[in-house]
Every structure is written in structure tokens, then in C-alpha cells.
């Protein structure tokens, strides 16, 4: 879609300057309150989950960080966490390790006296990393195979699409389970497994758009100028087929976070004692049924709110980029 088309279709008589596709999308997105709430949730999620990296970018390490935290791998430190997320304390409160929310521990402590808030914060960065890296892997595969498949057609297309069929038909959670059983539990394996299994959706989505875009005149013009196939695909075709992909990315990050939590719930996601929202939920469910509600409730809320943010923003973005819904 060229800028001109967007401008003539979306603009009233008052404004003269044609809007760029981004500005037009934003103008339409702004009207959707739910999408904006989703966007705010996503920004908060990025800030909380990325606090460590942001702090590292802003300056050297804070000296107040304990040594034990510094010894842990980088994804487990959790800059905002007030306590060591994996460090137990059997005298966390008057009642022993398990304490309901208080001023000292805002979200209470768990059965090992670990601070639930700290664990939930560290889990936030896990979810963020899983979401971004898994979708990144899927995108890298999908957006290489999809455009090539759609552009060349023929045998290449058949092979890629039959592969996509197989990945689509394979029951997803079962596939992830199998891959995780091979790779073993752990942080890196989770996003590898989710990433290599989700490419088919992006590939298929993008192939469709490429098929419709490749017949357009400016592609013809680029070819006439002697541009190579790869240049045409990645410089001219791909950028014009991205709108549905952005929607799929938003939904995909939400989906990857859900899948990670499901894997951790089944006990083959994160390796204990590392926290993720899913592993906290499975870890604390017996305490939940025993009336110690705070351990399980807070990670559940964090998970649901975050996924809501991505779904809500993704849906809003879909509506804002859908040419059929233009007024």
C-alpha cells in the first residue's frame, strides 16, 4: 500500500498533507481505548521486564546489588527485585517462612521465605525475554521462507507450504512438549522450542501478502531497473506486506508467554529454583488450596494482565490497519 492510497482513502478535506501509514494507523488506534490500555500494559511490562537492561544502559551496576544476585546468570538478576528472588529465609516473618503480604514483603513470602514480589519481577523479565526471543526466532524463519516461497512459487513454494502444513497439523503443545523433552528444561530451551515451532504462521501469512504484492507495478519497475530477486523480495515486497505481521507479532508474544507458562506449569519449562509465572503457579497451587492465596494469585494476575495487554493491543492494531474498516 503506497502512502498516496492511504492518504486519499483515510483523509478528510481539512488536512492537506498526506499521512504516512504509521501516522494513519496511530490516528485510528488512538480512538480505541482498549488498544491504548493494552499499549500502556505493554510499555509497563517492557519497563519492568527490561529494568535490568535499561539500568545497565544508563550507568554502571548499582553497588547495593547483593553478591549472590550478581553471581546468578544475567537473566535471573532482576534489577527491581527488593530481595534475592531465589534466596530463602526461614525467618522472613513471625510465622516462619510463609507470610501474607505486609509492608516488608508487599506480596508476601512463599514456603521457603522467598519474596513473592521479587520472584514475580524476575519472572516478568523471563516472560519478556521468552516472548521477544521466541517470536524473533519464529519471525526470522517465517519471514525468510514466506517471501521466498510466495515470490518464487513452484517447487520451492510447494515444499515450504507442505512443511508449514505439517507444523500446523502437529498438535502445538504436544510438539513443544516433545522438543522440550529432547532439549531438557531450562530458560534457553523454552524459547528455542517455541520459536522453531511458530514460524509456519508467519510464513503462511506473509506468503499470501507477497502473492498479492508481487504483481504490482512498482515491483515490475524494480525488476526493469535490474534489481536482484533478493533485493526485490526484502527491500520492496517485504516492507509492504508487514501490516498483518505486526498484528501477528503482538498476538505471538502474548501466545509465547502463555506457552512458556503452560510448559512451566507442566514442569518442563524453567528449571527450579528459577521463577517464571507458570512455574510459580504450579509451585504454589497446594498452598493456594490451603488458603495461602497470595503466592499464586499475584503471578496469575501478572500473567493474565500481560497477555490481555498483548491481545488487546494486537486486536486494536488489526482494526487500525485493516483497510476494510476505514471510515
Amino acid at each position, binding site marked *: 500500500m503506497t502512502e498516496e492510497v492511504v492518504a486519499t482513502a483515510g483523509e478528510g478535506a481539512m488536512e492537506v498533507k498526506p499521512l504516512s501509514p504509521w501516522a494513519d494507523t496511530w490516528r485510528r488506534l488512538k480512538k480505541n481505548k*482498549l488498544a491504548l490500555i493494552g499499549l500502556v500494559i505493554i510499555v509497563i511490562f517492557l519497563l519492568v521486564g527490561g529494568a535490568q537492561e535499561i539500568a545497565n544502559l544508563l550507568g554502571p551496576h548499582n553497588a547495593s546489588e547483593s553478591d549472590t544476585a550478581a553471581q546468578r546468570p544475567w537473566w535471573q538478576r532482576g534489577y527491581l527485585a527488593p530481595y534475592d528472588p531465589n534466596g530463602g529465609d526461614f525467618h522472613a516473618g513471625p510465622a516462619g517462612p510463609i507470610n501474607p503480604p505486609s509492608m516488608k514483603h508487599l506480596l508476601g513470602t512463599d514456603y521457603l521465605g522467598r519474596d513473592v514480589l521479587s520472584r514475580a519481577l524476575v519472572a516478568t523479565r523471563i516472560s519478556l525475554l521468552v516472548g521477544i526471543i521466541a517470536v524473533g526466532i519464529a519471525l526470522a524463519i517465517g519471514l525468510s521462507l514466506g517471501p521466498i516461497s510466495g515470490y518464487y512459487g513452484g517447487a520451492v513454494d510447494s515444499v515450504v507450504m507442505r512443511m508449514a502444513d505439517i507444523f500446523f497439523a*502437529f*498438535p502445538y503443545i*504436544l510438539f513443544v512438549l516433545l*522438543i522440550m523433552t529432547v532439549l531438557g528444561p531450562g530458560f534457553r530451551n523454552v524459547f528455542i522450542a517455541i520459536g522453531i515451532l511458530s514460524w509456519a504462521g508467519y510464513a503462511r501469512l506473509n506468503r499470501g501478502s507477497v502473492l498479492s504484492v508481487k504483481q504490482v507495478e512498482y515491483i515490475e519497475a524494480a525488476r526493469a531497473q535490474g534489481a536482484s530477486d533478493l533485493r526485490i523480495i526484502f527491500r520492496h515486497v517485504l516492507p509492504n506486506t508487514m501490516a498483518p505481521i505486526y498484528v501477528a507479532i503482538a498476538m505471538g508474544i502474548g501466545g509465547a508467554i502463555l506457552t512458556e507458562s503452560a510448559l512451566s506449569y507442566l514442569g518442563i519449562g524453567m528449571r527450579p529454583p528459577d521463577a517464571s509465572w507458570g512455574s510459580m*503457579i504450579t509451585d504454589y497451587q497446594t498452598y493456594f*488450596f490451603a488458603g495461602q492465596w497470595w503466592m499464586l494469585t499475584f503471578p496469575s494476575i501478572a500473567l*493474565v494482565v500481560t497477555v490481555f495487554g498483548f491481545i488487546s493491543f494486537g486486536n486494536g492494531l488489526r482494526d487500525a490497519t485493516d483497510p476494510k474498516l476505514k471510515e
Partner: protein
Amino acid sequence: MLTYIVRRLFQLIVVIFGVTIITFVIMFLIPGDPAQMLAGKSPTPGKIALIRSELGLDKPIYVQYGRFVNRLAHGDFGTSYQTDRPVSAMLKENIPYTAQLALAAVLLELIGIPLGIYSALRQYTFWDSAYTTTALIVWGIPVFVMGLFLQWTFGLKLNLLPVTGAGDLAFGIFPNSWNSFLHLILPAIAIGLVEVAYISYMQRAAMLEVIRSDYIRTARAKGLSERQVVFKHAFKNAVIPVMTIAGIDLGALMGGAIITEAVFSRPGVGQMIYSSIGARDLPVVAAGVIFSTFVYVIANLIVDLSYAWVDPRIRLEE
């Protein structure tokens, strides 16, 4: 039409082959030796070797795969390493539990259709925004979180419904006793509620699109009542795309709901496969994967065919 069906069935065969090959390769890569696991606590090397040759595990992977395909072509899924029972018998035992759950959940999710239509007809009202917000929140609730809160509320606090297991033995796609019906309610709600939210959101979007189309404007212009416009003209076109979602859901759920079955400790195809992965029980895993893939692909095919049958504008060429 016939060539279309034949081509799709041919694709199904390709997919089943691909899926089984992937399953075989993955099961081979999983660390651990099934023969050693079966041999017991302190096995002699001879015993392990015996089990290995009995199961054909001493042969290379392609020979094992060839034997598997050969057996499959004769309708034989093989024998479970773990239980030493025919896999087909295990499948037959577990399918009713899964089928009951899938059917109940899909019936429940159809509630989303009237909810979505109602919401669309009242766009920009308080009800619409409140409902859409709720739907989006519920859509993102993981099924295990939903399950845990249902168990806590209806099992622990209200003590109304059983929270684990499946009650009596299941035989068909319908619960055969009051007890098994009660056991079905919470798992079905756990899956169904999330899907109700999703379906109603989709239904709302589909209805909004249809209600803005030209033929609806024509219908209104010629003075039809709003009731007639909605139910005679808009309803059919808005409902068809959403029904396809429900159909595909049914196919996906028939293949086993691993997480829901885990939360509610409910037997079923998902549980059967999940426990067999841990035990490296290749024949059961492979059969389960084939079954799940098969029902899913067939459900998709049926949905596509009925879509074309209901909506003649759709041509089944590509």
C-alpha cells in the same frame, strides 16, 4: 469438488507421514534408553539386550520406522512398551473421555455467538465496551489458571462439584452417568469460558462487518424491521465464519487437552500421550500424535467443505 477432496486427503497422508517422521526422530533424540527403563532396577546387560531386540530397538531408526509404517498400514498401532497392551486398546479406552470433554467445551463455547451478536448490535454502548473488555481479559487467561480458580471456587469453597478425575468409566461421546457428567463440568468450563470469550469477540467483529455491508443497507432501506434485518439477513453470513472456528476447535480438542487433563487429573488422550513421552513409550506417543493430527486435519477438511456448501460464493480451488 471430488478432485478437491482427493487432493486434500492426499495432503493428509503427506502430513501424517511428516508428523510421524518428526515424532520418530524426536523420540530417538530424547536422552534415555527405553529398554533400560523397562528392565527394572538392577538389570543385567543381557536382559537389556533381550528387551531391546524384542522391541526392535537394536535396529536402525529407518528400519524401525519402516516396520511402524508397515504395521500401521495393516491397522496395527503396535504394543505399548510400558503396559505391554495393544496401543489401539489404550486409545479406545481414552478417546471417550477426551471426546466428552471436547464436545462439552465446544457446546459451551457456542454461547459466545449470541453474546457477540448482542454486543455488535449495541456497539458504542456501555454493555458493549464492558463485555468486550471482559472477553479480551478472559481470552488471555491460561486454561490452568482458570482450572485452578474453578477448582478452588466450586470444589473447595462451595463444595459443589468434583475437581479431579472423570468419575465412572467412559464409553461414548456422552457421559453415561450423572457422576461422570458432574466430573465433566469444571474441565469443560475451564476450556469453554476462554473459548466463549474468543468466539464472542470474533462473532462481534464478523457481525459488525456484515451489518455495514451494502445488502444490509438495502434491506433496511426497503423498510424491513430491525429484527428481520438481523435475523433473516445478517445472522447467517455473520455466523458462518465463527462456526468454522468452533469446528476447528472441536478437531483440536478431540486430539487431547493435555493441560486441562493435567489440571483436573482427568484421563484422556492428552494424558496418555503426555505420560508416555516421559516413559519413552514410542508406540503410544506415535499413535497419539497420529490420532490428534488426523482428527484435527479431518475437522479442518469437514469445516472447509461445509463452508463451501453453506456459502456458494466460496470456491474450493486453491
